[in-house]
């Protein structure tokens, strides 16, 4: 990065089921809140990046989604770029905004992620999600994303590294955190017994372990450190912003995952390692997926994820809280908005504004967002490091 970039403001529309609210209204509320939080007027935004994954298939708004939606934020006339990177679109839009400011091409940029998944027919939404794979290869095969996670988890269960109890307990933790987040779709505690007894979805993954179809939006305003003087909120610095795509795989299975490569690049860019990080927002599209990320992101050795969970390290109040927001599993997963919701959570935590879910003394936060699926791995990965 040529110059330092800071987050000036963030905002969200609550995640959940909002049958009466359109995509542009979701985006509008999140965007306006981010601008207000930043103390910035719409005409001060010099470039905007709009993430959405499914509107083309679900509402028919295939093109100019951002230009349509951002009029609700009062942003028009400036460059608006539409970003599609499956479930990693939100963090990808943020990455583009950071690059625009970091390169000096503008001083103040807006990133908004919004998704409208409740369209009166959940089957159609699930079908649209299957377009996040190579459709020529997987069409008419019954591809269902939970099964992808199930296959990864089953390997760990078979080796004894994880047990069904771990899958249940990480889900319980997610929902406990979600209860503390007013933006979360699910704000109800669950027991391990309820998790294991809920309807099976694929392999060992049950309904309560899964992120939900959701409506929602999240947004962030970034600007250069110089332009941020006099900002109303404590400034949160962007220490690293990295984006990767899935690599060719040899099939031998020893390569680093997309997520692992992306996060390692962020550690390198920031000169910060897992031991210096105070909280993580990771892409737990199923709650047990979080256990895989403990290892992938370098917070424990391979095979030790279960122990890290058992020690209570990853709960709020623990050594390294994961997903204090409730994560995708409890906050909900309106796919194009998720990456920016993770970033909003990191900013609130670092400012000390996270209320009952505050991670005490948080100074450095990691957000990790994954998208799509190609040849056995995520097709897109984004990672950001923030500090106060």
């Amino acid at each position, binding site marked *: 990065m040529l110059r330092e970039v800071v987050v000036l403001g963030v905002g969200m529309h609550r995640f959940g089921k909002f049958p009466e609210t359109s995509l542009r209204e979701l985006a509008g509320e999140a965007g306006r809140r981010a601008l207000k939080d930043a103390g910035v007027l719409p005409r001060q935004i010099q470039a905007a990046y709009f993430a959405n994954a499914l509107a083309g298939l679900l509402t028919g708004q295939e093109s100019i989604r951002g230009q349509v939606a951002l009029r609700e934020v009062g942003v028009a006339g400036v460059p608006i770029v539409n970003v599609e990177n499956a479930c990693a679109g939100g963090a990808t839009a943020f990455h583009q905004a950071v690059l625009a400011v970091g390169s000096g091409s503008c001083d103040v940029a807006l990133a908004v992620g919004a998704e409208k998944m409740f369209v009166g027919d959940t*089957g*159609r939404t*699930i*079908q649209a999600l*299957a377009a996040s*794979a190579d459709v*020529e*290869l*997987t*069409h*008419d*095969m*019954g*591809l*269902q994303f*939970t*099964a*992808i996670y*199930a*296959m*990864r988890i*089953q*390997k760990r269960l*078979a080796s004894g590294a994880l047990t069904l109890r771990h899958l249940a307990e990480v889900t319980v933790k997610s929902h406990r955190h979600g209860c503390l987040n007013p933006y979360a779709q699910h704000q109800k505690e669950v027991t391990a017994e309820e998790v294991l007894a809920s*309807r*099976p*979805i*694929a*392999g060992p993954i049950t309904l309560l372990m899964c992120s939900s179809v959701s409506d929602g939006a999240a947004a962030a305003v970034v600007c250069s450190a110089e332009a941020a003087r006099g900002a109303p909120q404590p400034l949160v610095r962007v220490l690293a912003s990295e984006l990767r795509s899935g690599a*060719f*795989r*040899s*099939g031998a*299975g020893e390569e680093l995952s997309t997520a692992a490569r992306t996060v390692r690049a962020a550690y390198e860019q920031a000169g910060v390692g897992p031991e210096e990080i105070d909280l993580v927002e990771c892409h737990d599209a199923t709650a047990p997926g979080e256990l895989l990320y403990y290892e992938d992101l370098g917070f424990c050795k391979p095979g030790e994820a279960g122990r890290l969970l058992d020690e209570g390290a990853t709960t709020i109040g623990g050594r390294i809280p994961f997903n204090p927001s409730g994560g995708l599993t409890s906050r909900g997963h309106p796919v194009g908005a998720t990456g920016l919701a993770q970033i909003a959570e990191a900013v609130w935590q670092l400012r000390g504004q996270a209320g009952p879910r505050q991670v005490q003394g948080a100074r450095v936060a990691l957000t990790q967002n994954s998208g799509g699926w190609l*040849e*056995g791995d995520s097709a897109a990965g984004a990672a950001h490091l923030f500090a106060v």
Partner: protein
Amino acid sequence: MTQGVFRSSTDGEGAPSLAGSRCRYCARVSFPARPICPWCGREDTEPVAVGRRGTIQASAVVYHAPIGFTAPYIVALVELAEGPVVFCPITGCLPDENAVPPGTPVELVVAPARAGGAPVFQFRPLGG
């Protein structure tokens, strides 16, 4: 399924196969076929029939089916004998959690995976 991903047994080729490519330089095999070798980067590949046999790398029973499919059924990652790993449904066995453990040898079948669906490539336990 688009043309060119597989050859079915009715294409006059005998047993069905998948349409892969082999690098003329490093001899490594890709599926789907690629004009540039993913491993050595050379633009020197030739078509090759692959995937008549493979082994199960991982599998999962799907209990909540997408539109048109009837649960439960099995999906898997299958490592082709030639190296590449593919995602596909598993047929020819009961949709049981232990039906196709990792390492199970499987053979290619080209058939629809749902009633009225397009033909797709699938695998079934060898000799099953």
